[in-house]
């Protein structure tokens, strides 16, 4: 398992190419989240984090998912700081023997990142600067994993 929280830009394709899926992995699922320009309204996102605390929280939720789904490997990269429109914010990749575990883990980790990763996201544009908070849909999405 590898968890990275960094202000550095990253190349999702290269990270996925080097994601070690292991000999008996039949399945690799992944998700990449990008900063959307929203038709030019958003120039960049600014993501704040709490150094140490944020990494520990993401590592804990990733480790829980790895164990719960019996994954072979799990990779979480979360960029923080200023992220220009069009660039990658987050990458989650999971490998497992069969497809359901990897696909479920990627959805679950993404849902938990939205509500449980100590990161604060501000949208910056020519005419706006606003803090993003998880939507009701985000909270429902995270809650469905706890029910199972």
């Amino acid at each position, binding site marked *: 398992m590898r968890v990275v929280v960094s202000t550095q830009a990253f190349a999702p394709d290269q990270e996925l190419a080097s994601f070690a899926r292991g000999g008996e992995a039949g399945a690799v699922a992944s998700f990449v*989240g990008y900063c959307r320009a929203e038709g030019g309204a958003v120039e960049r996102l600014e*993501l*704040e984090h*709490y150094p*140490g*605390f944020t990494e*520990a929280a*993401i590592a804990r939720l990733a480790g829980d998912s790895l164990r719960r789904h019996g994954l072979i490997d799990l990779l979480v990269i*979360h960029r923080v700081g200023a992220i220009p429109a069009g660039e990658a*914010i*987050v990458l989650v990749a999971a490998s497992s023997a069969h497809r359901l575990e990897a696909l479920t883990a990627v959805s679950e980790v*993404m849902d938990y*990142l*939205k*509500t*449980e*990763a*100590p*990161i*604060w*996201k*501000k949208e910056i544009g020519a005419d706006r600067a606003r*803090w*993003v*908070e*998880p939507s009701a849909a985000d909270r429902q999405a995270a809650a469905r994993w706890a029910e199972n």
Partner: protein
Amino acid sequence: MPRVLFFGRLRDMAGCSEREIACENDLDLPTFRRLASLGDHDLEEALAARSVRVALNAVLVPVAATCSVSPGDEVAFMPPFSGG
């Protein structure tokens, strides 16, 4: 002296990301919030919102009401997270 960290919109309200609080004694959380707000009642109220999570020395405080802050502690006030 304890230190306070503000994140997200709380940082915008405070106008800074951290402050040292001039105090040599243990404090309960409401008292600490009042001192950390430097007389800004809107900030003090915002820090006390149900949606704001508190970390003491980088560990989440499950029940904020029972939290006691000592000199040397680091207290973080965290509005709802929005990772991913």
